[in-house]
């Protein structure tokens, strides 16, 4: 049984269809990338999953039960992109408040909160007010409130935004740990690099419609091994007016190239070596970034 299942979910605001006939399924123990450009309908979809707004049509099942049935949403943790906190509330009180909003009884959440703040290195800030914490620490506390009740489904909207590398690592470790526990994680982002590293499967939506979904490795295979990654030092003239290149994404000393069908990668390498020093040459599957751009542009 899938942890989360959307069946032809539809939502319009006036004449604008924010989400059209969206169907997807997330299995337990997987990290599911929910990707799309700004305004694609990601947040609307997540809000419908959380029953914050109601779909016009379609069905949303969590662990097989409609999300409208009582207590189902207590098994879901949600970190919204809009991160607000109760500024005047003490850290500990805020944690307890959200734990209780998720249905945890007072005697049940004490040990859990103790363990989590210890692990996050925040045991000594519990008596501080939320507004006294740094943005990064506020975000860690918010992340805590999404996992504290050991949910079956976690929805994270841009969880790494604004975090320093150390804290981003910490959050990533917790996400992977939750995955091991069998939790399904829906990970909404437009940062393709972190999605690429973490996700087992993705769904790409654009203008409210699903344009691509499936396991990441299947999707990449579908796009073919006609991508070349080059790290170079020197001029990039070989990229221009080259008959075997369909398109490319140049970052100055790192370029991802899509070749025309049938073109030989070695021919490209030979051309490149005439203009620049090559430190890396790799025939690869397209990155999610490329897939994203290619799909959304179409």
């Amino acid at each position, binding site marked *: 049984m899938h942890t989360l299942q959307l069946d032809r979910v539809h939502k319009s605001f006036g004449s604008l269809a924010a989400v059209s006939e969206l169907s997807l399924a997330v299995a337990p123990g997987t990290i599911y990338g929910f990707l799309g450009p700004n305004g694609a309908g990601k947040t609307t979809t997540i809000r419908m999953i959380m029953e914050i*707004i109601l779909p016009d049509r379609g069905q949303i099942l969590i662990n097989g039960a409609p999300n409208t049935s009582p207590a189902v949403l207590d098994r879901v943790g949600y970190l919204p992109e809009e991160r607000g*906190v109760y500024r005047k509330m003490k850290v500990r009180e805020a944690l307890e408040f*959200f734990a209780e909003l998720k249905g945890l009884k007072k005697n049940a959440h004490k040990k859990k909160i103790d363990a989590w703040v210890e692990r996050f290195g925040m045991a000594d800030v519990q008596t501080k007010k939320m507004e006294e914490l740094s943005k990064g620490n506020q975000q860690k506390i918010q992340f805590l*409130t999404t996992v504290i009740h050991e949910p079956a489904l976690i929805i994270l909207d841009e969880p790494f935004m604004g975090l320093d590398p150390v804290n981003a690592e910490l959050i990533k470790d917790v996400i992977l740990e939750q995955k091991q526990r069998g939790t399904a994680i829906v990970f909404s982002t437009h940062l393709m690099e972190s999605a690429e590293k973490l996700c087992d499967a993705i769904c790409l939506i654009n203008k409210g419609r699903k344009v691509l979904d499936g396991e990441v490795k299947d999707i990449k295979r579908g796009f073919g091994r006609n991508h070349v990654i080059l790290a170079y030092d020197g001029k990039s003239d070989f990229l221009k007016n080259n008959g075997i290149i369909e398109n490319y994404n140049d970052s100055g000393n790192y370029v991802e190239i899509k070749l025309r069908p049938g073109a030989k990668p070695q021919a490209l390498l030979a051309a490149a070596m005439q203009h620049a020093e090559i430190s890396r040459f790799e025939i690869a599957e397209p990155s999610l970034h490329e897939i994203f751009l290619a799909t959304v542009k179409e």
Partner: protein
Amino acid sequence: MNKMWTVARREFLSRLKTKGFIIGTVLAPVFLIGMTVLPQFFLFLKSDKIKQIAVIDQTGAILDSLTANLDDRNAAGQRVYNFTKHEAAAETLPALEKMLTAQIKNGELDGYIVIPADILTAGKAEYRAKSVTNFFENSRIESALSRTVRAWRFQQSGLNVEQVQQLVRRVGLRTNRISADGKEEADQGRTEGLVRIMVMFIYAAMLVYGQIVMRSVIEEKSSRVIESVVASIKPFHLMAGKIFGVGALGLTQYSLWAGVMGLLSRYGVKIGSLFARDSASNLSMPAVAPEILLFFILFFVLGYFLYAAIFAGLGALVNSDQEAQQLVFPVIMLVIIPFLCTFYIIENPNTQLSVILSLIPFFAPMTMFARIVVQTPPAWEIALGLALLIATVVGTIWLVGRIFRVGVLMYGKRPTLPEVMKWIRYA
């Protein structure tokens, strides 16, 4: 439902602990006690000192009866005003005044009174002192002087002073209230005072606590914490939790104040009389009949729910306190108008206008309650008023619940009325 209480508890506790609430709750009774006890206390402090006052009596005949008429005594039983007699003709007056002024400056004298020879006709005297701002002292001297001069005038006209005083005696009007069951109760204007205080309480609850609910919604909305909250609790339960939590806060505050007022009415006068023997102040509260208290709680709670829901809906519509100020005005008017109407209703509880005013649901918490206290209306009118009010409360909460659900997640532009209507239909 449990989550609703979690929200209510947070609203209640987080506000209970704020400095503003504690200061406000403590200061109000302190202020009240101050108003009751302090004047008597100051009187007591002042009256200890004996005032040396010179009297320039140009009539040469007033001082003795003035002394008799101003016989205030301090705690030790000594005269508070000690008069010394001076006589001066028109030409020697300036020199005498100069001398007395010098005495005031060096502290030998507290002040002097100039009583001109024509005081019987002109009716004017002068009091000069270092400080003439003591209202109490001034009025004591003035009234003693008036009584003295009046008595003298009666004598001049050949009237017997005591007879005249008998003749101009005031008429006292004793008021008795006939209650619904036909019993007579002595009233003496207390019902009016009582109903004013109770209506004031309902008025304040609707305005003050209603707006606390509104600000609470705005705060969560503008800090964006609302999205995390409504992911865990249904917006309707969130709204209800807020209303209950803030309501409990209001009841706590009122109960504390009522307790203090109860104590004050029992002991306040006693405390006052420790300082001044003939305490003029009387703050004792009239006993509140149980059925009145019941109606009070009923209208208090219903009125609070009605306006707290309206204010919660307003909070959901706006993004900031500033925006709220523009929308809040009509609602405040909706509270102020019935409050002003109660002044008319207390005087005219049974006119057609009063009946209509007491049946309008948005007014009823104050207007119907005022009528019930002043002159209990027929049972069917109370029942109709209550039924309309309860229906309005339920309808408003339902309506606002729908607005709230959509509104709390709408950031940016404030919605127009047609948009709000759409929310109500589609939420």
